[in-house]
């Protein structure tokens, strides 16, 4: 009896260590430790009265502002997760968001179209842009990396053409999506964008779990040839995933201009790095077929916390770029390393006869 328990315990223990060494968990664990360290550090400095009191990391005001800040990156990360699950990547999301943002801002400023039609124009433009890119990527063997890099530059051009490099102020004409909030206490507010983000995450999670689309997403990312033979129209499938990504980009850009009350030319700059970093830290594999939206959610929140904590610590903001880049490399490295250990164990099983 005792012996049996021991065996069970051992099994359980093995399962736990295995789970922890699993790619997604190991990189998240690592980032989590980093956040805790930073928070402790921030609170430590705070206790010595070195930083402004009301910016304290764990204050309710700070938490609600972190949540609001990450919702844009988060919504982009949902779309990116879908694209990366199927084995692609989209570097153009940041600039596309900026482009859609300034397009809508300029239409709002002109003021001769009803708001619903502007929203519709914004959404459909984003989706059409992504579909166009998806068409090229799915119909040819071109790398999504390089195609989306090209589109990134194209959108940047559009942004400057629309704005002439100046910000377009829209005042309070478009506040609903980014500025309304439920006030739980005077300091703790839940913004509509946060609610929208969580809602979209839940919907996508359910869709991935309970629809054929979701199940197939993993399979296309896992092995395209096999997916094709199993009766999946891989080309059109990829096309629609990019289109869907366009939808998420358009939502993100609406929140952006609503929150800032302007459409600025540099709004989306570098956003793709934040998004890809969050998705990768959240455990989604660059090679496709592995990951989920909850991982992306955790990645987004963790990265948001880190940059917030660095702000509180008064670290030069330029260091944040170094930090973010380092984090991507490190989390991919950890994933590679834990994958390597597993592989060396199973290589014997996999080797087949030539």
């Amino acid at each position, binding site marked *: 009896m005792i012996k049996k328990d021991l065996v069970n315990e051992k099994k359980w223990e093995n399962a736990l260590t295995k789970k922890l060494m699993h790619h997604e968990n190991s990189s998240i664990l690592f980032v989590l430790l980093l956040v805790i360290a930073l928070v402790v550090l921030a609170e430590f400095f705070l206790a010595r009265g070195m930083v402004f009191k009301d910016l304290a990391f764990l204050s309710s005001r700070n938490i609600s502002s972190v949540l609001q800040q990450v919702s844009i990156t988060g919504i982009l990360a949902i779309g990116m997760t879908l694209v990366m699950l199927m084995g692609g990547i989209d570097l153009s999301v940041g600039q596309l968001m900026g482009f859609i943002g300034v397009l809508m801002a300029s239409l709002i400023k002109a003021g001769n179209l009803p708001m619903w039609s502007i929203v519709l124009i914004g959404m459909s433009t984003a989706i059409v842009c992504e579909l166009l890119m998806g068409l090229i990527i799915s119909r040819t063997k071109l790398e999504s990396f390089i195609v989306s890099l090209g589109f990134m530059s194209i959108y940047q051009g559009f942004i400057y053409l629309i704005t002439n490099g100046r910000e377009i102020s829209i005042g309070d004409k478009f506040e609903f999506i980014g500025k309304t909030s439920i006030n739980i206490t005077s300091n703790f507010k839940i913004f509509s964008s946060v609610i929208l983000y969580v809602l979209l995450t839940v919907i996508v999670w359910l869709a991935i*779990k*309970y*629809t*054929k*689309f979701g*199940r*197939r997403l*993993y*399979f296309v990312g*896992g*092995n395209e*040839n*096999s*997916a*094709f*033979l*199993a*009766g*999946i*129209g891989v080309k059109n499938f990829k096309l629609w995933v990019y289109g869907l990504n366009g939808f998420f980009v358009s939502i993100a850009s609406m929140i952006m201009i609503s929150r800032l009350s302007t459409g600025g030319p540099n709004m989306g700059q570098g956003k793709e790095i934040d998004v890809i970093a969050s998705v990768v830290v959240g455990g989604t594999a660059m090679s496709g*077929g*592995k990951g989920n939206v909850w991982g992306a959610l955790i990645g987004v929140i963790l990265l948001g916390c880190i940059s917030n904590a660095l702000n509180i610590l008064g670290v030069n903001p330029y260091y944040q770029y170094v930090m973010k880049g380092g984090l991507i490399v490190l989390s991919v490295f950890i994933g590679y390393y834990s994958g390597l250990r597993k592989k060396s164990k*199973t290589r*014997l*099983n*996999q*080797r*087949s*006869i*030539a």
Partner: protein
Amino acid sequence: MQSETILEMDGISKSFPGVKVFDNLCFDVRKGEVHCICGENGAGKSTLIKILSGAHMPDSGTIRIDGRVVENNTPHLAMGLGVQTIYQEHNLFPLLSVYENLFAGNEYTKGGLLRKSEMVQKTSEILAFLNSDISPFDIVGQLGSGEQKTVEVARAFIKESKVIILDEPTASFSQAEIKNLLHIVKKLSSEGISIIYISHHLEEVFEIADRVTVIRDGMKINTYNIKDLDECTLINDMVGRDVCSFFNREKVDIGGIKFEATDFSGNGVSNVSFVVREGELVGFSGMVGAGRSELAELLFGVKKADTGSIKIDGKDVRIDSPIDAILNGMCFITEDRQSTGLSLQHSILSNSNIAMYSKDNKRFVKPSDDLRVAQKYCKSMNVVSPTVHQKVSLLSGGNQQKVVLAKWFATNGSIYIFDEPTRGIDIGAKEEIYKIMTQLLKEGKSIIMISSDMPELIAMSDRVLVMRKGRLVADIPKDEMTEENILKFSIGGGSDD
């Protein structure tokens, strides 16, 4: 003929997990001879070459090159000792010119600068020696298949090789190209270079060989001087297995015509027509590259056919893509389960459900249903795994193959195309798969089985169709099915078109 031994393998054993490829193999090559190695698909020819060239390490035994014992052989070491291997696939830099390819890695330099004119000069000399009209400046990627092979031979020649290994060099060659290559081989051997030549084409073997070694199931059967050998002995030696000990299939009643393919061409296949009846297993035999897998791709809509039509249950059907094929009840168990059958990083569960999704138009899935399907087939096929959530990459070859089968059984198809159903699978799992196939036949389903495993073909098939160079060349009924008979048609038995 000189009799000095240049290369010697003694007592070589090699096994891969679960399979013993070689047991105590001895083999030697003399200076300046052309030594052919013959054997069926999977007899171990390629492994033998890989051991010689250093790509695989033998488990035991010694290799002696030029009298020197070679330990810890690596591709680099083997090349340094003068053993050059020319593999079946081209191994060149297609965007570079001929002379650049010849000297890649061994450039003539002076003070760090390339001595281009000397290299070009040398290249021209070698090409002239090989009777080739290729220019040193031709871009390799734009040359034909035969010319590229010539470039590879020239490259081996430049490295002052003692032994050149040619693995199936003529697989995609025209008659003229074959003739030219054989001429080159003779020329090299007259220069004192030994050639190990591997080919399925017996006519080539009889034209150039000095000696022939036959390998079967990882054993050397015999080495002959070519003058002591005739075609009949050679085929017998290649085949000669105890067929009786093999799997004994139950008889199943054969019904009416289920599947009818008419006049299929394209993708390396020309004018193939055949029928399969209910409860019938039609075997496809032929050498590698005879167009069998290519035909399967056409039937299943993976590749577009130039011509060809399919009737199922007497009705015309249009199959333009795998989706159409699946909707019409077809299933395709591909040759390579790792690259086209499974998504290795995913679980048994998701792999076994994926094809079923293409059967209906429902948008939603019920995870509990998916689980039930996966568990049902895992149980009925005896997949050895703790749970259905196990990644398929962690399963053995036999269990992986069962997951592929589960994927297709879940679609409830009625026409199954098996491409090499038991490749790389141990004998126990093989039998289980044969039983599963027999069960399918009992249920009145039709099976098209492509196989290079002769005993398997003979034991399982109701009829064997033989393909050669993209054409159907024979339809062999059960009572005339012998290995000799099938092999004779597959390799053309001396006659050529």
